């Protein structure tokens, strides 16, 4: 009886500890973002107040209206940055996915010599740190006179996204049984038709998540963009964030508002891909 009781008590405390642990994790994940959102809504006086004001007295959307109208002194052209980010991310994603489908399919469906070496080689191109890659790209693009254009960043981002896209799409195609395409071919499809009508639709959701991941990489990239862009012609949002800092002062509220604008699309897309991304990355981890 007592043993029964003590074990029950132990389990109860275990459950409490577990819930506390989960709560702490969730808190650590959410707190920084929540703080940013809160401060984008508070007037600057309140952000700067000493001693700190913990319960906000007034919440306004002033920072957002100021940002998007971008009039008055020192207005940051957020609309232009937003447009640039969108154009560059979408174009480079589309190209990277087209290349990734063809490459990922080759890795998933064919055996050829030097396959794993080639795979590793492709991955290694991704390891080059952005800032190290930016040096030669900066010199070459300056010679070609394409610095500060959308084209320059699109080319760079396609190259940045291709290796990872191939990895993911390879995983998704391997989840589609080979027999299906073979059956379709026996029924009279050409290889090309079998791919588009059988294999592609089945791997489709996976490809879509790869696309979202590539989009986010381009959307978030900073090291290359900070060197290859100059003006409103091609500056993207991450580079634009630095517009709010000057030598001695930082517009905390404006930066918070822009941060919210940057993260909102990314978070929305995360909901869509979260499950498939993992399965694409780990497929083959167990089965080899």
């Amino acid at each position, binding site marked *: 009886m007592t043993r029964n009781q003590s074990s029950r008590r132990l389990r109860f405390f275990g459950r409490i500890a*577990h819930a506390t642990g*989960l709560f702490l994790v969730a808190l650590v*994940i*959410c707190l*920084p*973002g929540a*703080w940013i959102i809160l401060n984008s809504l508070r007037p600057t006086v309140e*952000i*700067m107040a000493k001693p*700190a004001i913990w319960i906000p007295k007034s919440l306004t959307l002033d920072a957002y209206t100021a940002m998007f109208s971008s009039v008055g002194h020192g207005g940051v052209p957020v609309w232009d940055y937003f447009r640039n980010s969108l154009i560059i991310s979408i174009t480079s994603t589309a190209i990277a996915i*087209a*290349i990734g489908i*063809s*490459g990922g399919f*080759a890795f998933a*469906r*064919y055996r*050829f010599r030097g396959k794993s070496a*080639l795979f590793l080689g*492709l*991955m*290694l*191109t*991704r*390891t080059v*740190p*952005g*800032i*190290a*890659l930016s*040096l*030669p*790209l*900066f*010199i*070459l693009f300056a010679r070609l006179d394409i610095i500060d254009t959308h084209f320059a960043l699109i080319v760079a981002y*396609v190259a940045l996204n*291709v*290796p990872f896209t191939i990895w993911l799409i390879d995983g998704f195609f391997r989840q589609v049984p080979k027999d299906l395409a073979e059956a379709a071919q026996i029924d009279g499809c050409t290889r090309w038709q079998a791919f588009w009508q059988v294999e592609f639709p089945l791997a489709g959701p996976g490809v879509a998540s790869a696309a979202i991941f590539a989009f986010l990489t381009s959307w*978030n990239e*900073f*090291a290359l963009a900070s*060197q290859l862009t100059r003006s409103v012609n091609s500056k993207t949002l*991450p580079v634009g*964030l630095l517009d709010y800092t000057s030598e001695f002062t930082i517009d*905390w509220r404006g930066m918070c508002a822009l*941060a919210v604008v*940057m*993260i909102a699309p*990314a978070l929305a897309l*995360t909901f869509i891909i*979260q499950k498939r991304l*993992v*399965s694409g*990355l*780990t497929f*083959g*981890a*167990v089965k*080899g």
Partner: protein
Amino acid sequence: MKSLRLSTPFLLLLPAIIVLAATIALPLLFSLYSSFTPYRLTRPESLYVLIGFRNYMNAFTDPVFWVAFGRTVLLLTVALNLEMLFGLGVALLVEKATRGQRFLRTLMMFPMMFSPILVGFQFKFLFNDNVGLVNNALQSLGITETAIPWLIDSSLAFISILIAEVWSSTPVFAILLLAGLLAMPREPIEAAKVDGCTPWQSFRFVTWPFITPFAYIAMTIRSLDVGRAYDIVKIMTDGGPARRTELLWTLIARTGYSDARMGSANAMAYASILLSILFTVYFFRKLAAARQQIAAEW
């Protein structure tokens, strides 16, 4: 017929190879060449002067370089280990959760989607000595009277950067390890329990070997873009004050763009590229080995 079968995959891979060769391999060859010249952006003709290994000699005899190099390796080692540890902890917690697992999994992915520049900004704000949340909280609670200079003191700044880095990348580990835990068959653990294993033993000898490949996938993915830490440091401290948080990448950027000494920046960049490649190849081989072991045992 045989040659046709052989050429199909290469044909399919050709676009990828062309793009990567043109935008990464060739520029890197060019930067390798320019690392042997005294090239300065302000003097284009200096690109055609060869000076042998002088840039490398200068970098490798410069204490500034080695301090930055050491700090980078230290940051990566500590960060990767902490991320692994926390990631495992979070994965185990979430796996045990009986309700809301899907919600927790989505929540866990949030930091991954934050652009590194945003992570840097967010923690710069939190750790700001004047308006930051951390100092405000410490002062309101009466733990400290004066503001703690989180981003100015050299070891505190290193810790702040480390926290930002760990915050943003722990989810990669947590999510992949969780995927491993969920994919694991139930029987071996039950068998271990029946055979009288303690929870620790069954974790160490049953669960852990099974999820190691997932850990290495996470490590490989992480090492693919360790250079992202540049963004975080750039906005948080920009290597300052007085180079107290200088990493390899900020040093390269400073030498190449601010001082316009492209030649020596490229020489240092090569050191950083080799460092990343080393990390990736190491984990990739571990991954392959772990895969084989799993395939043999299960």
